[in-house]
């Protein structure tokens, strides 16, 4: 195999031998967003909604209520929770919570849903980013159950995708944590371009956004 390596590298070097070093890439695109937090949250909610996900804005001390009503709406009783999910988010919600302490995938598959936090949210694209932190859990967790309830805190919302990646830079380069960008529920348009929500990932996504403390 190292023969293949040497040969590919030699071919590459031969192919680019005459190529002058190009100038640094121009970066005239937006990397900062002047808008205030309230406006960002507004746009984030609107755009999450465009993906046919449910979105709810609640006071930070009302998250548990919002989770309960969302679960009821989807007739979900037993839900997995990320191991480091803040307890205040579920205190008194009356649901049967199953902490993920290394649940077997088959067990996870029998649950009605999952509750997780997030790392960053992007207003312009209505995207949530998970980075495998304890309040988000491993990647399977937000994938296998059919309902994903995700809590986004107001300060986690940024305007643009470049800002989100910047915030997550250390998580990837220093800690090698995986990232999952989620924009609405799983979907396919493979049959006659008609959009169907849900093939393999959760078919229903509920995003709960906490409001700025006033």
């Amino acid at each position, binding site marked *: *195999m190292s023969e*293949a*390596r040497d040969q*590919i*590298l030699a*071919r*590459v*070097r*031969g*192919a*680019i031998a005459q*190529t002058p*070093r*190009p*100038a640094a*890439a*121009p*970066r*005239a*695109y*937006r990397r900062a967003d002047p808008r205030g937090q309230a406006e960002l949250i507004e746009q984030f909610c609107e755009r999450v909604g465009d993906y046919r996900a449910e979105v709810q804005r609640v006071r930070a001390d009302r998250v548990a209520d919002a989770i309960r009503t969302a679960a009821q709406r989807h007739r979900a009783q037993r839900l997995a929770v990320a191991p480091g999910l803040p307890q205040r988010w579920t205190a008194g919600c009356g649901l049967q919570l199953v902490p993920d302490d290394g649940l077997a*995938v*088959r067990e996870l*598959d029998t649950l009605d849903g999952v509750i997780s936090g997030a790392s960053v949210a*992007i207003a312009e*694209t*209505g*995207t949530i980013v998970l980075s*495998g932190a304890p309040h988000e859990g*491993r*990647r399977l967790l937000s*994938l296998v159950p059919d309902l994903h309830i995700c809590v986004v805190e107001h300060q986690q919302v940024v305007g643009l*995708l*470049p800002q989100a*990646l*910047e915030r997550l830079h250390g998580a*990837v*380069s220093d800690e*090698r944590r*995986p*990232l*999952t*960008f*989620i*924009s609405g*529920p*799983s*979907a*396919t*348009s*493979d*049959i*006659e*371009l008609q959009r*169907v929500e*849900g*093939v*393999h*990932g*959760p078919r229903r996504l509920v995003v709960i956004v906490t409001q700025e403390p006033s």
Partner: protein
Amino acid sequence: MRAPGESFPAAAHHELANPQLRANLANATTTIRTKRARVVEELPDWQALRDAGSAIKADVMANLDTYLLEFEAALTAAGATVHWARDGAEACAVVAQVARAHGAQEVVKVKSLATDEIELNRSLAQEGIHALETDFAELILQLDGDWSSHILVPAIHRNRTEIRDLFRRTIAPGIESDEPAVLAEAARLHLRERFLEAKVGVSGANFGVARTGTLCVVESEGNGRMCTTLPPVLVTIIGIEKLVPTLADLEVFLQLLPRSATGERMNPYTSLWTGVSDGDGPQELHVVLLDNGRTRVLADEIGRQALHCIRCSACLNVCPVYSRTGGHAYGSVYPGPIGAILTPQLIGIENAPSLPFASSLCGACYEVCPVKIDIPRVLLHLRARAVDTVGGRGERSAMRAAAWVFARGSRLRAAQRLGRIAQRLLLSGGVIRRLPPPLSAWTRTRDLRPLAPRGFVEERGERE
């Protein structure tokens, strides 16, 4: 479908006889085009993003050896095993070897053009290993022994009743409804069990980050997430051209790709993973760096930009030739304008001399390309090369393709552009050493004369 060895014009005739294909394609390309235009207009800095994307890719190509070594080192440090494959056979052998080592008779696979290109499924089948396609459309095609007609919506040539009947015969006996939601549910049920059982997953990658060794898959359905997180072992095959220098460079491509591809602000799922993570996802990761003709493309200074392609398929959707013939007519894994410039370079122009002629050179592909690949320029360059390489044979196939594009009234729109093309050709005569002979062939096509600008006809007339 294009029979092996059939040239583009012959295959195109064949495909045109399929009304289902034509209607679905027209609908698909128009719908996606409209959606794309809407979300692109929304961004005030779209052109700046394109400029950045184009420049980043040019830098990657100019320093590819350095980036490959950096990528390899980062992956190794992150616990992955790196393999280098000169051709498809070497890449397939790695997958087979990994599957065998884990006693896997089946691998679950997420749609990847690179694995189609190397015919991984066929190669694994010869080893007694079944590669299960998990993308909804790919599953449909696999169940029916059919193949893709569009990069992004590969089964767009099939309608719901056909798919329902197919499912009834295969994975869902007794299914009644042909509602897309019901059909998707049948696929979900069928595949869920296979995901849970799978020992080995196989994926491609949209991007690889040289600095950190991070791999990135962009998708909609979640089957990509399933394949890259559920099985204990993962093999990712990535073309050597798919690298970007740093994590921050993804900020450009993750904006360009979804808007250009499905016309969404962002696709449902984008996954990034960096080697092996403790207790999360596969605990064994193999990464195959695939050449398979890419270094040959890299050696052509004009043609090399075909390697910048991020496979968004925007150029397919705007192409007047593609939207009438569909992907099958190109007889290659990469259809449409990108296929017309990439395939002949990957497999050698002598093996696909008619493909660079499967275009009207209208320039629409260049305008939509998120990384600004100058497809018309590369087409002209390759036409000249085709003629140089295969001589008379090239010219004949060129003539047939050109005649096909321009022969009928229904292709009027394409034909009307000939004036502009001719001008461009004549003006750029200094750049292209000489006018490719097919040009003279075009004027012999009867329908063209009245449409071409007068100067063009006169010029030709003098020559003939």
